[in-house]
């Protein structure tokens, strides 16, 4: 079983540096420069996974990002393991541990493989059809499906690696470092354009890098030797940045592109530590050159999925680049000239080629003649009708094709082999082009979709633009680049090029077998295990749209997005439906081109950097005094201050009583504050608030309600007139930014004639609120020279003052219903003033309270919280705040909406108070309210918006919105809960001190 299939010829692999790695627990060896796939193949390991549905053994099929089968799990630590990586893209490093996915208990013995024997019972959409009904069985199905469908294991712990984001701006971005990309990048940079060339491999050159063949020469050198020299000169080209191991993930409008650079994935385990693993480049390019090349297509025939069946160009890369033999008795199967290059490479490396099976009648291109000269046997006009070998191919069966290609004739020939190279032609990688919004056109002659129209400043060159032969690639790329960049460079057009030209083309999407289609397994999507049969069945069942067929059969829905066989699926659909392929359209290729790690997407925005945390200037004091914090938008607000292991409930009860009985202190710094100045400031406030502002005296404060144009309450707060043309507005904590934006919008767009200036000063002020019957005494200790009499400093008024020479603005306003002051100071003095207040309040047992107590205290007074008791569907009338709507004002934002037919309905939900019959029963916020419980269905009349146990009233209180609630005062209602029904009575919204005696106490 273990064999060394390495030949010592490769220049790209360091034959002297042996690397040890583990695959499925077994220690193996590879060489520096290997991918995991090439190292496995060198160890004669083809079988790397099981297919999704039938659990058929699957082997490495390609050498690149389109690999459908060799999907492996990296790492042995379940907390940081990485699933769904492609063995063909993983550069081998010392200490690498990888394991097969989608097989249980092991890749060699897989229980799910039993599905393969039942496969006639598992047609297209088997999962949809079978597991749909009865629904109650879903739990069982899900368990079964999850057990047997190996989609890899997610890591269980946070990713320890570091990821990074950076911006990059350039004149020209060239995507793809093959021969055409190199031509474009060099031409561009030499013409003083700031150029960036990226390639997903570890070195530039694409496939020409190892194209050492008589039939491909440039200026009398082998194409690979010419290209090597060209690459060497790149280092000395100015204006050129080259990024290898960098995959273009997404191409958005306005030439905005995302590329992922791998920085440490190829390093040995002990060299990775402390370094940035991947960097996501956010690229804005003036012009983009797409030179992403093309992918070889497989062929669709019976049992075309066995380990050992590999794309022919991949076999060539494994032998020419990695020095690895994919087999020792290789057969090749084709519809085009590609495999002849592979056959010649294999023969020159001493691997015996059994024969080439070519579906074409006969062809005489340069390369075919060369293969014939080497004595390679060719079966013309033939096809492979079957393959054998369970875990590795061991033979194929060949038959002649009929003239029309729909059936097979004559005698079956059996050929033994350990590897079958297949080539069904080439598919241009147009994914990025279509991602960018480009439209494709179809070329009938070789069945390819090519870039056509685009709105962006970009071109596609080389084989992704349909030029598959060396001569065309060089000449056309050069011409296109010159035109695109508007320059004149003849360097490449003068080159003398020898290049074999393909002379005959023939394509059969689904190759016939001697067995009927129903008894064959011609796989289309190797990862999702859908066959040509499934697609035909979907069409018979009436699916017409390619997008529907795709989803129904899951063709192209795997992690590889069906890169390999999308064209065959389209071809078979077109053929069966009797339409032209170009008319059928193609499926949408969505970003990312290859899967991106979550790490690369989030970059440094993890942990505490995930979002901004705003802290008040007094925050440290709250921390020191063991506050629990609540997130309000981005703010951290002190929630409550538990003492001696108190529960939250107990803390809040204690804080609430203290605030009403003596004094409480609250950090209100997070309230939004907007400085409003200008000769039209009063007029502006008249237009944005529902009540009148013109007559507000200087030094007085007023509560305002702000609506949207639809009449719904948007925000509220107290605004103070500091001088004739100067106000300071407060908003809710969460609404601050939006209120400012809304006001700016009106000022700039609707009322540009108003002389008003708005400035956010939320962060410039710290606000300390002191409330309770002793607040006046405390303030008089702090500011002895300020007259605090009700006459001099009444409720809803403002004074400038200073505390120990710290200037402050003091407002006598109240959100708790208590006699209360808000002291605003420059932020940097916030903590100091807070501490002074606390010190002065000590003799009155001043108690710090948090947002929860604040909410409770205001609920006792029936004050609303915009956003808690309102939800964007409540008008001021719904809130029973008709008193705040000015009757005199001609207009304000939202006024007209207050008497639309919908807003004057009597049965709108209105804000009311609720008292539970059992005073100790606390309602749940959000609980539904009904009028009766017997007749079903029960109409939900409303819900609870705020609910607390009031320690000051010694009973449970709640606010709620109820249909027609205004007219239902005194009525009994029910709040049905899971285990019981709570009886409640509708009341007024003000529970405490209806006469406002406390405000002036």
């Amino acid at each position, binding site marked *: 079983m273990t064999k060394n299939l390495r030949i010592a010829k490769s220049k790209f692999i360091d034959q002297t540096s042996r690397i040890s790695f583990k695959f499925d627990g077994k220690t193996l060896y590879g060489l520096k420069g290997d991918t995991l796939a090439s190292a496995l193949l060198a160890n004669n390991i083809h079988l790397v996974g099981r297919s999704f549905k039938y659990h058929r053994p699957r082997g490495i099929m390609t050498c690149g990002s389109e690999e459908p089968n060799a999907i492996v799990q990296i790492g042995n630590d379940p907390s940081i393991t990485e699933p769904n990586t492609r063995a063909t893209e993983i550069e081998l490093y010392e200490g690498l541990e990888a394991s097969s996915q989608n097989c249980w208990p092991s890749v060699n013995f897989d229980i799910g493989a039993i599905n393969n024997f039942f496969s006639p019972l598992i047609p297209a959409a088997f999962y949809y059809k079978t597991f749909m009904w009865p629904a109650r069985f879903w739990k069982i199905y899900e368990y079964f499906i999850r057990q047997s469908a190996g989609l890899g294991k997610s890591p269980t712990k946070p990713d320890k690696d570091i990821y990074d984001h950076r911006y990059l701006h350039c004149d020209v971005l060239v995507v793809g470092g093959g021969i055409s990309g190199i031509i474009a990048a060099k031409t561009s940079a030499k013409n003083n354009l700031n150029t960036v060339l990226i390639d997903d491999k570890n070195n530039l050159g694409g496939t020409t890098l190892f194209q050492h063949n008589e039939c491909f020469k440039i200026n009398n050198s082998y194409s690979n030797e010419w290209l090597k020299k060209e690459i060497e000169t790149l280092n000395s080209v100015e204006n050129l940045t080259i990024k290898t191991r960098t995959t273009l993930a997404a191409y958005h409008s306005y030439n905005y592109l995302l590329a992922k650079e791998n920085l440490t994935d190829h390093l040995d385990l002990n060299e990775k530590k402390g370094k940035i693993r991947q960097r996501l480049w956010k690229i804005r390019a003036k012009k983009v050159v797409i030179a992403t090349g093309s992918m070889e297509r497989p062929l669709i025939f019976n049992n075309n999925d066995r380990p050992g069946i590999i794309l022919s160009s991949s076999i060539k890369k494994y032998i020419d680049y990695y020095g690895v033999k994919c087999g020792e008795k290789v057969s090749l199967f084709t519809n085009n000239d590609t495999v002849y290059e592979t056959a010649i490479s294999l023969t020159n490396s001493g691997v015996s080629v059994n024969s080439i099976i070519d579906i074409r009648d006969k062809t005489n291109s340069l390369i075919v003649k060369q293969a014939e000269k080497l004595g390679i046997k060719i079966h013309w006009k033939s096809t492979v009708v079957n393959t054998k070998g369970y875990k590795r191919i061991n033979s194929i069966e060949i038959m002649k094709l009929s003239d029309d290609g729909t059936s097979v004739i004559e005698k079956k020939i059996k050929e033994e082999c350990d590897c079958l190279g297949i080539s069904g032609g080439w598919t241009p990688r147009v994914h990025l082009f279509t991602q960018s919004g480009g439209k494709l056109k179809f070329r009938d002659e070789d069945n390819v979709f090519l870039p056509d129209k685009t709105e962006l400043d970009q071109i596609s060159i080389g084989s992704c633009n349909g030029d598959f032969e060396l001569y065309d690639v060089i000449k056309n790329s050069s011409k296109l680049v010159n035109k695109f960049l508007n320059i004149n460079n003849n360097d490449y057009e003068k080159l003398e090029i020898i290049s074999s030209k393909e002379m005959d083309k023939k394509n059969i999407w689904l190759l016939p077998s001697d067995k009927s289609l129903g008894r064959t397994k011609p796989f289309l999507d190797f990862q999702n295990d859908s066959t040509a049969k499934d697609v035909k069945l979907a069409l018979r069942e009436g699916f017409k749209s390619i997008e529907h067929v795709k989803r129904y059969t899951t063709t192209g829905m795997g992690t590889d997005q069906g890169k390999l066989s999308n064209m065959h699926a389209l071809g078979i659909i077109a053929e069966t439906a009797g339409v032209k392929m170009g008319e059928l359209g193609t499926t949408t290729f969505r970003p990312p081109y290859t899967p991106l790690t979550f790490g690369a997407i989030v970059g440094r925005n993890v942990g505490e950097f995930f979002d901004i945390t705003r802290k008040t200037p007094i925050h440290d004091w709250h921390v020191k005094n063991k506050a629990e914090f609540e997130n309000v938008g981005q703010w951290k607000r002190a929630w409550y201050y538990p003492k001696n292991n108190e529960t939250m409930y107990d803390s809040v009860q204690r804080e609430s009583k203290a605030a009403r009985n003596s004094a409480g202190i609250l950090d209100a710094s997070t309230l939004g504050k907007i400085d409003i100045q200008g000769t039209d400031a009063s007029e502006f406030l008249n237009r944005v608030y529902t009540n009148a502002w013109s007559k507000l005296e200087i030094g007085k404060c007023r509560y305002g309600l702000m609506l949207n144009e639809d009449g719904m309450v948007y925000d509220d707060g107290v605004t103070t007139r500091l001088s004739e043309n100067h106000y300071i507005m407060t908003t809710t904590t969460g609404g601050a930014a939006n209120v400012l934006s809304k006001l700016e919008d009106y000022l*700039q767009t609707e009322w540009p004639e108003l002389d008003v200036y708005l400035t956010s000063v939320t962060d410039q002020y710290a606000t300390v609120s002191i409330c309770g019957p002793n607040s006046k005494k405390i303030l008089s200790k702090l500011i002895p020279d300020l007259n605090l009499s009700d006459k001099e400093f009444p409720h809803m008024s403002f004074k400038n003052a200073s505390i120990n020479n710290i200037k402050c603005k003091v407002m006598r306003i109240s959100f708790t219903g208590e006699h209360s002051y808000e002291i605003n100071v420059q932020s940097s003095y916030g903590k100091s003033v807070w501490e002074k207040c606390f010190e002065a309040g000590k003799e009155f047992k001043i108690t710090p309270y948090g947002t929860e107590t604040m909410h409770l205290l205001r609920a006792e007074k029936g004050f609303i919280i915009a956003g808690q008791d309102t939800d964007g569907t409540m008008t001021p009338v719904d809130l029973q705040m008709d008193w705040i709507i000015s009757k005199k004002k001609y207009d304000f934002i939202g006024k007209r909406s207050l008497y639309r037919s919908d807003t004057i309905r009597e049965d709108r939900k209105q804000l009311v108070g609720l008292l539970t019959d059992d005073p100790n029963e606390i309602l749940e916020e959000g609980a539904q309210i009904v009028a009766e419980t017997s007749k079903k269905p029960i109409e939900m009349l409303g819900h609870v918006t705020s609910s607390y146990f009031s320690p000051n009233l010694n009973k449970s209180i709640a606010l709620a919105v109820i249909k027609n609630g205004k007219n239902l005062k005194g009525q009994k209602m029910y709040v049905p809960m899971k285990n019981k029904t709570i009886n409640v009575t509708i009341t007024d919204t003000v529970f405490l001190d209806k006469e406002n005696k406390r405000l002036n106490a």
Partner: protein
Amino acid sequence: MFLINCPYCGERDQSEFSAGGEAHIVRPKQPTELSDDQWAEFLFMRKNIKGVQLERWNHSHGCRKWFNMVRDTSNDKIHAVYKMGEKPPIK
């Protein structure tokens, strides 16, 4: 991701801007004179067409100025930007 040419600051990344819906919908000067239907027309009705559309944008993480844009919603091409109060340069 668009590249937007703010009339006050120049070309900036789309992430600095916020979109504000259809442009040139003027708030009625005398809302109280309007019928429910007329007010609803101003309040709710927006075109959202496929093709060239006039839109409001705000350079919210920049100069905070509102301006208008002529954008083709079918291909995201921005044909022009212009200041508030100006007439659309292209139709």
